């Protein structure tokens, strides 16, 4: 299947740089209807020799039957696998395809361009490290290009390839290419992309896909596939972030064993590490990291393991075991971006089921602060959300959640809302920095935010900035007594014994409320970069 793998590699799969040693890149294709997304993926699979002979024969037959290219190979049919898609020549749902080259393993999600299926596009985007945004060279930027660009940004993709497709239909015009690229850069300037890499391509003819095309001698960049093999993309190293372990399942084979099965969402853990279970705040120490292959000396972000603790503390599904030093805030209200995915509109004040990590609760939408206008990316006054609309909203959960920002960790800050009657997934949610306390009080602007609340700074700031305004002289006295004059998180936490934490949290909640009241102006970040 893969012509690139040498026999020696194949013969020693554990040691050779075969499949499992390759770095994995997950990307999507997106853009407006008919811009050529599926054709491009089919073309990439074909050019990297991932299409077996029997599949090629089937493609040939299918192209004659359903093809949009007058019987010539229609590469989109390699990806559009549903009967309805083939009949209509469109993509309805996301397709996941897998391919490997010498250098990398790829998971690519081909997403639908039709507005009606935006939620399927967002599903594909949610796990992507990188996006290829396609634009039909004849048509330029369309509303769906804007919508997809916004969603890609909102969902946390930082690097995009801007593939100006169907260059064959504009005579491979450099001017046309430059014009669209300039317009796109202007449109995307507030979307917070780290890199935008433009490429002139023809998915149909294969120009600038596997190798540079002679028809675009003016193009200075790399062709798409080699670029994908080397581009740096994806989230930062979650292994370096504070330890977070959502508990999925309490593992209790007999009376002598009680473990907590889950996955390390960030950071790492070793036996002997002090942890705290949230939201309860009970503290303990990791005793063992249990796996069928034997106990591990350390577990890192991304691993599924079972932990046992030194103490018999109450921990159940949905709790988070966290590092003691850097704990996430525990709250029952959050600010979030919502992408509405249901056919039925949101009912303001209605109650939904929220699922975040392994935790489920009831949630109500307190307030839709603003809708994002897909044409201007500007917020507009809030109203009930309809299918495919994006909004900034305030949600209230009926029990406390350990809260992480989506931009720090997709798995800890992303949630879904479920309609309790229809059981539909009605929204994707992404926890955004709160408008009130934590953002202004406890974070610095350097961009190196942590998801945990910095208790020391919080108390300090409360004293300096707020308490006079709130007339909270008693609290500042208490804070000073408890914490001294903390200068660092570590010092503060050293003092902030677990017993005091609920107390501090109580104040903190009050301050948030007071602050929220003080802030009458609800300023909005108009772009997706904030998440």
């Amino acid at each position: 299947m893969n012509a690139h793998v040498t026999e020696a590699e194949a013969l020693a799969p554990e040691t050779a740089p075969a499949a499992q040693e390759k770095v994995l890149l997950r990307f999507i294709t997106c853009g407006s209807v008919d811009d050529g997304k599926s054709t491009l993926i089919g073309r990439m699979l074909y050019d990297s020799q991932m299409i077996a002979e029997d599949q090629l024969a089937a493609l040939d037959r299918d192209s004659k039957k359903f093809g949009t290219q007058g019987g010539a190979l229609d590469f989109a049919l390699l990806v559009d696998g549903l009967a309805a898609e083939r009949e209509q020549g469109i993509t309805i749902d996301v397709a996941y395809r897998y391919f490997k080259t010498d250098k990398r393993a790829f998971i690519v999600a081909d997403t639908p361009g039709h507005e009606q299926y935006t939620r399927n596009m967002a599903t594909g985007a949610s796990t992507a490290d990188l996006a290829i945004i396609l634009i039909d060279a004849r048509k330029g930027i369309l509303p769906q290009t804007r919508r997809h660009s916004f969603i890609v940004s909102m969902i946390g993709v930082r690097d995009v390839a801007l593939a100006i497709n169907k260059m064959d239909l504009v005579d491979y015009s450099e001017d046309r290419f430059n014009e669209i690229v300039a317009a796109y850069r202007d449109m995307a300037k507030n979307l917070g992309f780290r890199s935008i890499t433009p490429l002139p391509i023809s998915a149909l003819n294969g120009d600038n896909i596997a190798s540079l095309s002679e028809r675009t001698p003016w193009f200075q960049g790399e062709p798409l596939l080699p670029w994908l093999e080397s581009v740096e993309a994806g989230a930062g190293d979650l292994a370096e972030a504070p330890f977070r372990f959502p508990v999925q399942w309490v593992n209790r084979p007999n009376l002598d064993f009680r473990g907590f099965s889950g996955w390390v969402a960030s950071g790492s853990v070793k036996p002997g590490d002090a942890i705290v279970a949230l939201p309860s705040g009970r503290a303990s120490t990791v005793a063992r990291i249990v796996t069928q292959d034997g106990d591990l000396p350390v577990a890192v972000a991304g691993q599924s393991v079972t932990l046992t603790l030194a103490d018999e503390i109450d921990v159940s599904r949905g709790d988070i075991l966290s590092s003691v030093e850097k704990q996430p805030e525990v709250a029952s209200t959050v600010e979030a971006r919502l992408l509405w995915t249901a056919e039925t509109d949101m009912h303001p004040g209605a109650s939904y089921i929220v699922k975040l990590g392994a935790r489920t609760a009831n949630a109500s939408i307190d307030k839709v602060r603003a809708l994002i206008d897909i044409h201007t990316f500007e917020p507009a006054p809030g109203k009930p959300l309809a299918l495919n609309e994006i909004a900034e909203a305030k949600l209230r959960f009926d029990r406390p959640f350990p809260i992480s920002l989506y931009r720090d960790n997709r798995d800890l800050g992303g949630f879904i809302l479920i309609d309790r009657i229809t059981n539909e997934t009605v929204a994707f949610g992404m926890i955004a920095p709160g408008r009130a306390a934590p953002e202004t009080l406890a974070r610095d602007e350097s961009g190196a935010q942590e998801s945990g609340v910095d208790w020391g700074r919080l108390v300090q700031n409360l004293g300096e900035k707020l308490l006079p305004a709130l007339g909270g002289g008693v609290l500042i006295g208490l804070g000073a007594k408890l914490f001294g004059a903390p200068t660092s998180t570590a010092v503060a936490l050293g003092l902030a014994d677990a017993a005091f934490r609920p107390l501090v949290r109580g104040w903190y909640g009050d301050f948030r409320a007071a602050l929220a009241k003080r802030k009458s102006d609800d300023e909005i970040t108009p772009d997706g970069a904030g998440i």
Partner: protein
Amino acid sequence: MNAPLTHLQKLEAESIHIFREVAAECEKPVFLYSIGKDSAVLLHLAMKAFYPSKPPFPLLHVDTTWKFREMIEFRDKRVKELGLELLVHINEEGVKAGVNPFDSGSRLHTDVMKTQGLKQALDKYKFDAAFGGARRDEEKSRAKERVFSLRSPEHRWDPKNQRPEPWRLYNTRKRPGESFRVFPLSNWTESDIWDYIAKEDIPVVPLYFAKKRPVVRRDGALIMRDDERMKLRPGEQVEELSVRFRTLGCYPLTGAVESTASTLPEIIAEMRASKTSEREGRIIDHDGSASMEQKKQEGYF
């Protein structure tokens, strides 16, 4: 500090996560054990997911009565070794009606003995989630399927209206009678499966390894004559050829490939060099391009 996780470690962790979500959120899950290499990997992952507990669900094999004998032997041995509960279901009505792959054709046989058999078993035990070893790289309608795939009370799949499934968040809510098919191996490829079998030393049915076996050339495929029920057509003869199988199913419907690959490294090398897809050898897949989707809509796994 710590080496980043390899591709296989990531796949393993993701699959284990899926197993645990089902165990935590579904009432009565079952593991559909089809005895092939994907089932072998899936079972291995289930053991890991719950260790030191046993997987909190039984295995179910829907036996069409036409599986290779070596598959059944392997199944019984494996289940015993692991100390798991195995349910075997046979569609007795189909047997009574005399449905078989030779006279009824592959389509009817598969529908009655496999698809209907599966539905009967799921209804009989009222399972609300069934794990399967399907991978998205197998086939283009599978490439479209969710990890948690909702089925109506009639076991139908509605491919045009699947729930969005962002991140690793699975909406496991359902109405009475509805159920899930859950695919923890969704993101694995055939080559990942073999690499993992090699790395973890997972036992698989010996039919995957080349050996001299009695085969008949029929309709362009090499069919192993596993028992006397396969009658020879005029002009046909049984040949002893060194063959192996890339996928396993009902023996009359599973084409063998000529091969001398008798060790794991040889199999992996052969797979990497192969110019055909693994499903080439499955006779049921060829009845039309969208046929897998259709079968799935009707309730086939």
